[in-house]
């Protein structure tokens, strides 16, 4: 039986780490952390947001411990090899690759994962105003990088 949300967590982790193996390690560590601290989870709150928050905290915790480690590979490397990838997918991924990581994070959480601004604010532990401005800047930057012709469609 699949662990709930592990696929979505892995998809997000791949884009955080830019490395499939590192992303799998990160998700594994985050899920174990969630299992250990499950007693702290408030039943009426959103378990998806809680899991993503743990993932983000684990990622930045690792980053602090091991600043020199991340070897950046193109974000889209994993997806690029897939048969289903289309020009459109690659174009969007390339544009996303070029965004600053804080804009990429809020776009992935707010748009792709469908979290509200206030949920993103809790997941990333940043004020909601910061999330809103990062989202606006991210959307604008993404639009500028994407082909204006395809934009018009």
């Amino acid at each position: 039986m699949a662990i709930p949300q592990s696929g979505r967590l892995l998809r997000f982790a791949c884009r955080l780490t830019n490395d499939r193996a590192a992303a799998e390690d990160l998700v594994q560590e985050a899920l174990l952390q969630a299992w250990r601290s499950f007693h702290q989870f408030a039943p009426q709150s959103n378990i998806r947001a809680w899991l993503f928050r743990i993932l983000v905290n684990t990622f930045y915790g690792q980053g602090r411990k091991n600043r020199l480690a991340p070897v950046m590979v193109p974000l889209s490397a994993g997806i690029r090899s897939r048969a289903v990838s289309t020009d459109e997918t690659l174009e969007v991924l390339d544009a996303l690759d070029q965004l600053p990581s804080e804009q990429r994070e809020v776009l992935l959480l707010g748009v792709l994962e469908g979290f509200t601004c206030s949920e993103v604010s809790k997941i990333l532990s940043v004020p909601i105003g910061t999330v809103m401005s990062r989202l606006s800047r991210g959307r604008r930057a993404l639009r500028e990088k994407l082909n204006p012709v395809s934009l018009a469609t």
Partner: protein
Amino acid sequence: MNCADISEQAPLYLSHELSGPELRAFETHLDGCRTCAEEIELQISIDARLRASIGAEIPNTAELDQAVRRQIQMISLTRRRRFMTVAAAIVFLVAGSAWWFTRVPRIYADAARDHQAEVIEHQPRRWRSELAEVNALAARFGLPASSVAALGPAGSILVHARICRLDGKPVLHLVYQSGTREISLFVRRNDGGAATNTPVLVGREYVEAFRTTRFSAIVVAAGSRTECLHFAQTAAAVL
């Protein structure tokens, strides 16, 4: 709401977090402002492209899920083992303390055994029955010669004495007769040994240990707690 407000509030509008008057004001502005309406349309189309291009694929996590489950099982097992170790240590400590605090000091057990063997069962020993000989033994432990006979309560008589060892220490063993009962009194110089507050039952014997400034003594009486206590009180007053 002006165009700057729309630009600021757009993320909330797109994530459906605006409601009531805020939402109405936002939509009223869009109805009347073509620039803002187009801007929001563009943002919606960007979101749609993002979702359509990378949102549809969710990676396969079968191996990852399995690895997580294995690790959880391992952690559970380690925790269970740790719990069992701690539980065993606690049981051991509790049982050990219970034994420690309720155990009979070896010297009491030795005294009770000697009384049973030598006085009750009359196993052959080299007893001294002459008063002069008993007094000589008593002198070796610093007991005044005259006090030996007076150690027993009124009505009891000194029968005989010998030197024996309790818990490896030399002790003067005095035996008194009181009615049909024989009572043992073991005396040695005060060595700080433990004292009982009340006679304790060791096997079939009541044992009362007490200390004075100069002597440590143990009274053993078979079957009678009162007699044991009475004898110990009399002896303690003399010693």
